[in-house]
């Protein structure tokens, strides 16, 4: 199968959605500009025109409200935020209207709105261009949250999101944009609320959210080097969350480490641990742990930024401690083939 980037997968999914459904449109700051949101909207304006592909004023609150209004009228808008941080301007509409309209209007209306929001990382983007705030919407019933990691899932999740008759927050991590993988040309959808086992293992389960699924996958390779077998799960959907798949794995390995792509206090990792904690366990005591961004705003200085994020090696170290029961200061030697990708913009 041909390999394409995450960017191209998102672009292609959008193109096919717009092609196949005249109610689909895409809008948001700069979706129609020459840089076309990292290329994810490239060519759409020329193909579908300014009615279906339009940039907006800097007015996130009203533009979110407008998306909800359009969706109530039966359109299927995709609203793009080049930074998830800016979603904080949209919370009133998403929480108080979008997530509630179907219920509080007794089922008389619905809001098939997709919100694409990107998490920044690296190159000193700093405190306000780096946040993974999706857990704040996991907290709210009435809205779905999906965070695809691979180009394959990026395409299938976007198609599922736009066809979903409820609001969906579609989370992208910008480092993922450059990854490449096999992606079918035809349209397909990910099943709602289904996690993916990226790698099977027996000693410890590692669940990684969004980009952290890749880091977890790399961590499993470091662990393999020292004879530890890690099962890696990408939940893909954070709301609804696939408790079953995660629980089955944790029951098998007896250990679960959840890696957030944001702060883990009241985060996705907290939710995963809470679900595990509530489950029925026979006699074997499961070990449960989580990692997330350091509990502070993201510092731009490269030396501090490095310390801020979990990465394959710190994840491996944590998992090893869980398996061996010994918390030492072991860290694997960095393997060149498992290095994090570099990011130097565009911003």
């Amino acid at each position: 199968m041909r390999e394409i980037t995450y960017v191209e997968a998102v672009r292609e999914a959008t193109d096919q959605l717009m092609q196949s459904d005249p109610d689909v449109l895409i809008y948001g700051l700069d979706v129609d500009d020459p840089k076309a949101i990292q290329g994810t909207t490239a060519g759409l304006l020329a193909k579908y025109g300014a009615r279906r592909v339009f940039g907006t004023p800097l007015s996130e609150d009203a533009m979110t409200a407008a998306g909800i209004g359009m969706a109530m009228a039966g359109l299927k808008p995709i609203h793009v935020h080049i930074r998830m941080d800016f979603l904080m301007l949209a919370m009133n509409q998403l929480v108080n209207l979008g997530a509630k309209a179907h219920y509080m209007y007794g089922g008389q209306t619905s809001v098939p709105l997709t919100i694409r929001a990107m998490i920044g990382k690296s190159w000193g983007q700093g405190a306000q261009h780096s946040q993974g705030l999706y857990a704040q919407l996991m907290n709210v019933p009435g809205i779905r949250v999906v965070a695809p990691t691979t180009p394959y899932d990026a395409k299938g999740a976007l198609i599922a999101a736009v066809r979903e008759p409820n609001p969906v927050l579609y989370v992208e991590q910008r480092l993922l944009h450059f990854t490449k993988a096999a992606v079918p040309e035809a349209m397909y959808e990910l099943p709602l609320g289904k996690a993916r086992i990226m790698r099977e293992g027996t000693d410890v389960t590692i669940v990684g959210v969004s980009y952290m699924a890749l880091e977890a996958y790399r961590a499993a390779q470091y662990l393999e080097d020292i004879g530890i077998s890690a099962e890696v799960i990408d939940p893909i959907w954070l709301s609804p969350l696939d408790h079953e798949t995660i629980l089955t794995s944790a029951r098998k390995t007896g250990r679960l480490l959840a890696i957030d792509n944001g702060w883990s206090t009241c985060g996705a990792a907290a939710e995963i641990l809470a679900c595990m904690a509530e489950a029925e366990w026979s006699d074997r005591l499961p070990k449960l742990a989580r990692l997330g961004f350091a509990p502070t705003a993201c510092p731009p200085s490269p030396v501090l930024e490095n310390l801020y994020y979990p990465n394959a090696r710190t994840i491996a170290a944590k998992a090893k401690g869980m398996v061996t029961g010994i918390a030492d200061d072991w860290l694997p030697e960095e393997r060149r083939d498992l290095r994090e990708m570099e990011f130097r913009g565009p911003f």
Partner: protein
Amino acid sequence: MMDVAGEMYAQAYRIRRAEEEIARLYPTDKIRSPVHLSIGQEGVAVAICAHLRPDDVVFSSYRSHAAYLAKGGDLRAMMAELFGKGTGCAKGKAGSMHLVDSAANVLGTSAVVGTGIGNATGYAYAHQYRQLPGIVVCFFGDGASEEGIFYESMNFAALKQLPILFVCENNFYAIHTHQSKRQARCDIAGRAAAIGVPSEMVGNNVMTLHEVAGATIERIRAGDGPRLLECQCYRYKEHVGPGEDFHLGYRTEDDAEIWRKDDPVRQLATLVDTDLRQRLEAVVEEELAAAIDFAESSPWPPADELLRDVYKTREG
């Protein structure tokens, strides 16, 4: 055929009486939902909605009984909703503050001030997108015009030349605080115009408003982009609840008296001959009694409604 004044009187009387009944019933605790009455302000919804067609769409706030009814919302379903019954317009999930009747194109009444302005703007975009003939009308208060979403939405509506009429019901108060304590320049129409939405201020005369609204809506239907009408009016009752509030001291009976003398329902009554008026009133009274009866006798929603409608189920 009945003339415009007659039709408007019937509607205004209906709204007035429905709200009076709500106020009368409130102390019985049968209506367990905060109610924001429009008594005194009905002229605005009535005069505007007189120009609307079924395929035009209305958005409003928590103070929406008048707009809901004037646009053709079902009175029985509204009463049942206030009673929290399963036959309510939203099956007991809306209460007074989120009335909805999609068959009548009454959508999106919201209790977070200002939110509907943006939703209505998006809805108007959808109409333009689909080249539908219907326009969108969005009612909100003077207080709502202070929220950022008002400004952002005006700009977008003007930029895209959307088929929308913004109706600011300026009753001079947000809860107990006068406009002059909240707005540096008390000229909402002027603000909208500076952003790019042609606007007009209209006083409390219902027939004048009816005329201005007619001309304005005609321009919008002709594809001439959005408009705003700032409509001065006065709320007689307390901000929320069935009572009066002059004892609070933020406004006086004398202030109210000036407006009461020019009461919108009475303005219209004087334009209709006594015979017709009495017949119209009788029809309303009958409808109203039946609606209250319907609300009273309807069943509660079943327990499993609690978790229904959280997510819309996908078709197909």
